């Protein structure tokens, strides 16, 4: 009963969801094997060649790679060539895991691989930690956290023992270990591994590692119930991944954020994060198990059971494909709940039963795992045989065992923790300081990246314009000529013939395509077209990032601004809103747009800490605002007092009014001369 109640807690489920996210992004690397040829015969050389070929196509054609590894495997088996077996199996396992998501087969390959490594590739010491890490990862994927921790321990020990200099692998093991410990509920131990991770020197430019570290820090904080810090670190991680154009990881961060907020009861915020998650990488959204689960979770929590059912069913399918049992159990449970709530008792019962069945199988394996761990040192192999006979007995002993385990674990943990806490107390303080410095430097980096992105955006706009206005017009002209041709050609009118029609169709298809490409190149133009909508989007985005309450007030008859002007005004408002959120420490921000007949007035005001306008030397942002205002022939005023918030007033005459005025002035000038 105890175990059952643990599994029924939906918090545990969703928490597990968040952590598997992390682990599943740390892929088992089995790539560059040191396949020294040495004193090989020709046939054996060929086996290695097959594997090398497989490695080359791994990424692009996993199926061909797999069949290459399989031929290498059968050839090695025929030759009795253990080294070939070892390399073929590890690469096969990695490929199945990384590209095919066939976890069962992958695990079988790694398990089979291990003895051959001892037999035939014992000189390649780096092979062992890789396999241990991979095996840990696979156990983790299946929800056997204890076993996963055991394998990760082995991996770390073997790296240390053989003094293997593979920082990437070490980092990956630390990260995996931390996530397994978190999933097993041992947050403080996990913290230790995150710190190990932090301590391991990484090339400074490796922002992917940095981003992953931020993500894991977010996970730790979340488990420590520090929502703000978790939000902060996941946000940092998402930003870094954005800079790296790694949108599936951006999605991962937003999904974690959404899941957290959903569990905290803020379904609206959660929804916004999930929306961002989907937007970050629409193509992977449907296959993202945790995203689908999260969406189910917000709907179940807000009472939209029909919708919840849809998403949970989807998550069930994905979990089934990936062999993730805990996720399947969760989906069954949620579906049973949802159906019960909507009065479909038969379906609710069905899912409840599936839930219990799967739970039972997992429970059996769990007991096996606990036992095997305690006695693994003595006789690992016999245990499983005995287990089958002892199963009945075990059911009775189950509760006693858990208690005993708890005691042992508790004592060890307390001792370990005391030491760890003392050591880490001082270390942590220094760490925080360093973290701050690192953050400032990151900020600089982000700013640099942003300027690159802006340049790229300009370039994209230019290409879009050239395509749309240049090539597009030429094509239009070509089509007109072509249409004429169809009618004109002397005795045989071309217009009816198939070739002619096909030619015309192709031309027209081309024109459509060019239009689509041009629009895709600058999608933001589409929503910048309407200032009000663009600001609404901005606000909903900003609301996710902070605790500032943002309001938009509109007055007058909405005028569509000239595109360039529209863009400039939008950028200014964006800058102002960013400034408030970053620096003002405000809780309220109001944007007012007043559409007059001849001008647009904008007021952006906040209740933040304010600043002394006379003392502030113009920062980049403010200077930007003034420059833009000047270009718009507008007027900008900033009123701020320390502790009394800031109000920015912007006045922009409509472009057409400007042009009319210029014209009048131009006409007047010659008159004056005369």
């Amino acid at each position, binding site marked *: 009963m105890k175990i059952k109640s643990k599994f029924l807690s939906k918090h545990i489920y969703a928490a597990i969801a968040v952590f598997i996210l992390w682990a599943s992004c740390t892929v088992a690397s089995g790539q560059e094997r040191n396949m020294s040829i040495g004193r090989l015969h020709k046939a054996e050389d060929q086996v290695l060649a097959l594997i090398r070929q497989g490695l080359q196509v791994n990424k692009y054609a996993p199926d061909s790679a797999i069949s290459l590894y399989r031929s290498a495997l059968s050839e090695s088996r025929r030759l009795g060539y253990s080294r070939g077996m070892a390399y073929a199996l590890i690469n096969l396992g990695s490929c199945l895991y990384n590209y095919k998501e066939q976890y069962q087969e992958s695990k079988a390959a790694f398990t089979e691989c291990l003895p051959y490594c001892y037999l035939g590739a014992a000189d390649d010491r780096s092979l062992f930690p890789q396999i241990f890490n991979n095996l840990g990862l696979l156990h983790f994927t299946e929800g056997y956290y204890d076993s996963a921790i055991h394998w990760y321990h082995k991996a770390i020990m073997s790296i240390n023992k053989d003094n293997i200099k593979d920082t990437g692998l070490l980092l990956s093991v630390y990260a995996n270990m931390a996530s397994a410990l978190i999933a097993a509920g041992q947050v403080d131990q996990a913290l230790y591994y995150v710190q190990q991770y932090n301590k391991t020197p990484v090339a400074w430019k490796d922002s992917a590692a940095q981003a992953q570290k931020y993500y894991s820090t977010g996970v730790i904080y979340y488990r420590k119930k520090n929502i703000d810090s978790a939000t902060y670190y996941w946000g940092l991680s998402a930003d870094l991944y954005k800079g790296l154009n790694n949108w599936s990881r951006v999605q991962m961060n937003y999904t974690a954020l959404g899941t957290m907020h959903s569990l905290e009861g803020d379904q609206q915020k959660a929804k916004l994060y999930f929306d961002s998650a989907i937007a970050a990488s629409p193509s992977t959204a449907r296959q993202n198990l945790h995203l689908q689960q999260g969406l189910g979770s917000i709907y179940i929590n807000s009472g939209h059971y029909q919708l919840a059912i849809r998403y949970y069913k989807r998550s069930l399918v994905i979990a089934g494909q990936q062999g993730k049992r805990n996720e399947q159990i969760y989906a069954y449970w949620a579906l049973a709940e949802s159906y019960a709530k909507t009065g479909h008792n038969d379906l609710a019962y069905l899912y409840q039963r599936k839930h219990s069945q799967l739970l039972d199988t997992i429970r059996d394996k769990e007991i096996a795992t606990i036992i095997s761990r305690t006695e693994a040192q003595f006789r690992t192999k016999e245990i499983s045989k005995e287990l089958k006979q002892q199963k009945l007995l075990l059911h009775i002993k189950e509760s006693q065992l858990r208690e005993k385990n708890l005691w042992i674990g508790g004592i060890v943990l307390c001792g370990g923790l005391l030491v760890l806490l003392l050591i880490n107390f001082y270390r942590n303080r220094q760490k925080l300081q360093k973290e701050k410095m690192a953050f400032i430097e990151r900020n600089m980096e982000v700013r640099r990246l942003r300027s690159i992105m802006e340049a790229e955006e300009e370039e994209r706009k230019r290409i879009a314009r050239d395509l749309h206005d240049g090539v597009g017009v*030429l094509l239009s002209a070509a089509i007109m000529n072509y249409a004429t041709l169809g009618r004109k050609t002397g005795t045989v009118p071309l217009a009816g013939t198939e070739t002619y029609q096909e030619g015309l169709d192709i031309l027209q298809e081309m024109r459509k395509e060019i239009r689509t490409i041009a629009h895709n190149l600058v999608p933001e133009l589409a929503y910048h077209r309407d200032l009000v909508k663009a600001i609404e989007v901005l606000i909903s985005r900003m609301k996710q990032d902070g605790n500032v309450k943002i309001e938009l007030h509109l007055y007058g008859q909405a005028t569509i601004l000239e595109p360039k002007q529209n863009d400039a005004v939008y950028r200014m408002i964006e800058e102002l809103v960013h400034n408030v959120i970053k620096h003002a420490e405000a809780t309220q921000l109001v944007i007012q747009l007043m559409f007059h007949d001849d001008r647009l007035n904008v007021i952006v005001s906040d209740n933040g800490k304010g600043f002394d306008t006379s003392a502030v030397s113009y920062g980049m942002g403010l200077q930007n605002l003034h420059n833009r205002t000047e270009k718009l022939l507008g007027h900008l005023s900033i009123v701020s007092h320390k502790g009394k918030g800031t109000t920015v007033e912007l006045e922009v005459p409509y472009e057409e009014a400007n042009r009319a005025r210029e014209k009048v002035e131009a006409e007047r000038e010659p008159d004056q001369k005369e």
Partner: protein
Amino acid sequence: MHSIKVSIVDDHPMLIRGLQSMLADIPFVEVVGAYLSGKALFRDMQQNYPDVLLMDIQMPEQGGEELVRELHKAYPDLVILAFTNIEHPYYIKSMIKYGVMGYVLKSSGEEVLLDAIQTVYKKEYYFDPIINRQARDVLKPSSYKGPQNPLLTEREKEVLQLIAADYSSQDIATKLYISKNTVDFHRKNLLLKLDVKKSTSLVKRAIELGLIF
């Protein structure tokens, strides 16, 4: 049947030639002029006055908006059909505002163009099916009334109080250490926010809403 006299102004010679050869086969259309700029068009306008003018919007010397305005001033009856690649609502709106009868995209093919020429010739509006919805949205823009109780900034409240006390803009400027332009900025916003036309009604409305006492 009387054929419709059409002129073209567009800065792409290639496109003009394409149009000319296409329209040459259409019995009810006669191309009477083709020009690479607004200036050239104006020079020839008297001699070759078209029933329908096909006009590009983006032209280097003189943009479409300005050209439409000038043409409309000089020839109020001229029927103009915008023929362009741009589908930004701003241009759709401004062209309609300055008096074009129709708006057709260059990418839309022969049928649409011919349909458009015939429709605007009858002095009826025509919009390319692709932008039809946008054009209709543009023609009846949304109006924001603002919340029931408009939100006034501190500064606006100060200005409102002083207007109620019958101060002039200049006096208010002096009193609040701001420029007269800034006072007018706030005064205009207040008029819009309280939905009134004159400063005198401003005070009355503000009292009604309980914004000043």
